[in-house]
């Protein structure tokens, strides 16, 4: 969070295993009205967690096991789309 406060980012990738609730963090970041797109990466994706993450405002929900080329492609795809509207 310190790093997020100090710098502007285009994309923030959150490791779902490193925080208690990645979806909650994504929604807090959206609530701060940051321009950054939030992507949640996980080693064990499930459809329920994917739903929670995307409904919380994450721009994407991806596997951690992606190789560099795949990750680059996902990030480029996320950057092409404007961020969803901030929560009211």
């Amino acid at each position, binding site marked *: 969070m310190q790093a997020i406060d100090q710098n502007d980012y285009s994309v923030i990738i959150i490791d779902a295993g490193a925080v208690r609730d990645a979806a909650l963090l994504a929604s807090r970041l959206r609530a701060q009205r940051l321009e950054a797109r939030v992507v949640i990466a996980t080693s064990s*994706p*499930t*459809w329920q*967690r*994917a*739903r929670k993450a*995307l*409904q919380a405002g994450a*721009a*994407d*929900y991806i596997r951690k096991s992606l190789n560099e080329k795949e990750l680059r492609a996902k990030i480029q795809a*996320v950057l092409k*789309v*404007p961020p*969803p*509207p901030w929560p009211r």
Partner: protein
Amino acid sequence: MAKTAILFADNDPDFLNTRTEFLENAGYRVLKAYTLKQARQLLTEAHVHLAILDIRMVDDDDEKDTSGLTLARDPTYRSAPKIILTNFPTYQDVRAALGPVVDGLPPAVDFLAKREGPEAMIQAVERALARHVRINQDLQIHWDQQEPLSFLHLVNLLSSDLSNEVLTHWAGELEDLVRRLFYEYRHIRIGRLLWHHDRRLCVPVLAQSSQGATDSRILVCGEREQLVQESERMRELAPETTEGTKWVSTKKTIHLGATIYRLPNADIETVQPLREMFRRGKERPLKTAIGYLLKEVLGTWHQRGQTLEETHGLMSLYRQWVGLERDGLSQTEVERRANALIQAVRPLSAVEIEHSNGLITFHFPNLEPVTCPDPIATLYTPLERYGPPVVCRLSPGRLTADNILVDARRQAWLTDFACAGQAPQWWDFVCLEAVIRFDLSQAPDLMAWQEFEECLVRPARLFDRLKERDVISDLKTSVVLIEQIRRQAGSETGPDPLPYYAGLLAWTVGALVGYNLDGFYTQVERMRMAHLIMASAMLARRLRETFPLPQAGSTLRLDEKGSLWIGEHRINDLSGQELALLRCLYERRGQLVGRQVVVESVFREPYQPGDDLQESRINSLIRRLRVKIEPNPNRPRYILTVKGKGYRLQVGHQSDA
């Protein structure tokens, strides 16, 4: 207010029927689709607030069947929120359904597994409706008591070719749009129709909040894509001033879109279109309103800077603005339509309109005929002196007698921004003059129109005073307002009236071509057509007097190939007979050429003195040639008449004096 309608699409009939019961018990109207085709049809034709779509709509056993998701992603139906429901949830399908957000909505707003049960489904529906379908169910909608409308009536005006069933659905959509746009209000009163054209319409709305405060709004609605584009254009281009029309909000459904605008400081209850104000005929309030419109409204648009159009010339740009450069509308087709209209208005009053050999002649009883060149040919002749490049300024778009609003304090507002963009700098003034000249002015006959048009095409500078004493009293106010418009045009664009007249010519031809040839028209409408034909012809004559024909001092010659040159201009639109006459005169230039010589060498027949038909043919041929080569056919400088004897061709310059 009708029940909320939910489209429910699932290829499992038992599941669909069972879950439908739950939704109906919760108070929703459910439109069931057992196939993808039915779902698509209902989304296209019916009025749907929310859609629940199964992913595997074709084959439950096929892992690759994501037809429901494909439908959810179809941009045609993007504006209806959707919930994806599946027996086989995967995180990849969730990603595809819930992101990305395009145009305000993701492909689906929620994703459910069927095993989560009916309660979860009802909750998801309630959440989706509350968040994405914010309809003010408590809004009280009142209609103007003197001219009451209805949503059905409005939708019928937007699209008269719909079946009754679809019309009812669209009326429901329009009501939803209004309830969404006025979400914060308790009451609205929708006034009488201000204008409708091009599948859009405009009404004033007085809105009252629950605290009792009232706001004045203008509602413009129409087909979705058109409306959305218009609102984006307006938001991007409109000047940021405290005055002038302000965008408030735009909402859309699958078929329709609606925008509300705010008119700062407007007294919405007294707002009326310019047409109604003109009908009352009081000159001073009209002058004040036109002055406000020119300086405070159009002036702020024009001040947003100028651009140079480098590709197209002035005539080409004007043709684009009046819709004559659309696909498939060739010059020949424009000529065909104009000719058909001339035929249609011919038996009108005592004036005979003759159209032949590229000339239009108006035969007035007891007066000299007025002969003019063909306006269509003139419109398609480039005015090379005026570009490219052409100076363009920002225009709010199409100005009409109905889309300009005026209130009791003579303030004016614009309401139609569908065509906003860069236009030749004379364009807004031309449109405003054309509205007054052709839509609002009234005259009893073509003679009165002819005097009016002569008065308007005469000035050599935009600043010049118009001689209103030459027109009938009914038209004097129009002349005063047109003079006011031209004065402002002159101060912004310079005194040269020719590019201005060229714009008016384009406007008149655009209006003529806009008539449906199979339509049934009243005497008043046919008189307007005849007025447009006459004005276009007189404008063409005015343009041809100066351009591209020679300036004073030009000499006339026929070269070795038989082409006619006047100064540096080659005249190449002469007919065979006209060229034969010219050759006959040219071979005897400076000499008297008797009528007998003309008949024998041009018509190649014996001269019959006293033959009225032969006399008339000579006169007609001389007149046609003069119109094509003389700067002013009524005061010839090349083909001179020697009274009672014949003609003399003067190839060098002869002073006008």
